[in-house]
């Protein structure tokens, strides 16, 4: 039981990661693929945040006497990764908008068959 509940957040990470990854691979709709990608990335954010967190630790802000604090570095790192995630998502969605304007659809199989016709 300890392995299930003791590593609770890591199980969440694994489940989210696999869900997101599955959606990216299996979804046919380009927007859904991006949603899956976001879930996939979010799982990594949780991984980073979990590894820095100590139970009972506070934010590492200057105080008089030493206290137990949570390691801020993984959190700061993941802030950067979140920014990157936002940039990726918005760029991906912008591409989907352009694809929709060019092809009239955002379903991958339809786009694929339209492209196939073009290359013949």
């Amino acid at each position, binding site marked *: 039981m300890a392995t299930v509940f003791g590593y609770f957040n890591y199980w969440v990470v694994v489940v989210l990661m696999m869900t997101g990854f599955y959606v990216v691979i299996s979804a046919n709709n380009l927007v859904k693929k991006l949603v899956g990608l976001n879930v996939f990335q979010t799982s990594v954010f949780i991984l980073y945040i979990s590894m820095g967190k100590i139970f009972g630790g506070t934010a590492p802000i200057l105080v008089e006497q030493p206290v137990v604090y949570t390691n801020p570095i993984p959190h700061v790192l993941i802030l950067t990764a979140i920014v990157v995630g936002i940039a990726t998502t918005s760029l991906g969605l912008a591409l989907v908008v352009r694809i929709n304007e060019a*092809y009239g659809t955002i379903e991958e199989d339809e786009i694929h068959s339209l492209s196939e016709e073009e290359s013949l």
Partner: protein
Amino acid sequence: MDHLPALQVVLPLFCAPLCAVLGRANLAWMLALAASWLTFLISALLLHEVLQQGVISYAMGNWPAPLGIEYRIDSVNAYMLLIVSAIGAIVLTAARPIVDTRIRLPENKKPWFYAAYMLCLTGLLGMTITGDAFNVFVFLEISSLSSYVLISTGRDRRALTAAYQYLIMGTIGATFILIGIGLLYVMTGTLNMADLALRIPQVSNTRTLHVAFAFLTVGVGLKLALFPLHLWLPNAYAYGPSVVTAFLSATATKVAIYILLRMFFTLFGAEFSFKTMRLDLILLPLALIGIFSASLVAIFQTNVKRMLAYSSVAQIGYIILGISLASLTGLTAGIAHLFNHALIKATLFLALGCVSFRVGAAKLERMAGLGRTMPWTMAAFVIGGLSLIGVPLTSGFISKWYLVVGALERGWWPVAMLVLLTSLLAVIYIWRVVEVAYFKPPPENEVIREAPLALLIPTWALALANLYFGLETSLNAGVARQAAATLLGVTP
């Protein structure tokens, strides 16, 4: 002079927003051009300094190394910086005619193209120069995001889907790298590469570290288009604008390979990567299958850009093959081929840029008779092609030679035979282009002129470099050998 490492990255970074606010495409181009040649100058100075005095370390924001971000330059990444900045500058010199006519952007958005180009250059240089593992991820994403933008500006609407596909696969790769770095941080509590290299051996028998290694390998493998993770590459290169393809094919995958080298040899150490994890058993077959299958697919392409894209996958296979030998000669071959392949592919794709500038598309049937109508362009293409095949007196020969010698040193003569055999496949696909261009009559009803000088001069500069570095090998092979020795921790 002390601040060259910082300026190397900051100069293009500073230039990118300036390009965006300028509002005029020509001004933006000139500014970007000046900045990119200056970065080239800086990288040349850095390489000189490293070869003279050894490793340069630069503490960002005056924070000392293990805590702060360190830029650390040894012969390996000084060499890479030179490749990236040189190709970036030369390709940008040729960019203007193509950006003016063959890019799907309204006139007022064209400065943004140069801003994206500069950001991509920033990212690639940053990935190469930094000595901090997390910094690698940040710069990787800067270069990747801007390269998705650059690819999506292609005229064909398939450029959009290619960019989307690249975005999905590239982000998965980058996220894998992020997971790997996170696991490394958990085990060691540091992100500085030099510090990591010291601490990893202490925990090298834990499963977390093995998992981190696996994630990093797959993630970087995706970015460098290692077979079978190369699926994004052919479309992205085929439908992106020619200048972008020339730039990315010569630099982006190469920098990813550099990250792989850094990881295998500096962070984890050759002992762990090749003795404990037996990477050679994985990389060698993948490299060989990649070379074979991609070369075979390239033969059957009718779009010449796509043909060369598949050939890029094959050439990456050669580089990986050299790395998987894990010997001084093999590694020298791999690193020298980084340089040579960058030259070769930049030449070929720029020549195709000239072709598509005049003919409209780089389709094989549209290239009929170009040997007569565009003699200079096609001559440059042939030189690039010969170098790709690995004909003696061209730069491509040097790396193939080291590769064969390296394989024979290990006693793997079948591998050496396969390298020679696959070079014949390259002869076939290059020959298909040459045959159409030189032995078919040009179409009668249209007049095709030679490409403008603004395109021809950079293309020829690269073509001549192919010949020059085939004869004068102190830079590509000599420094590559030194870099290989640095990675393996032996004296050359």
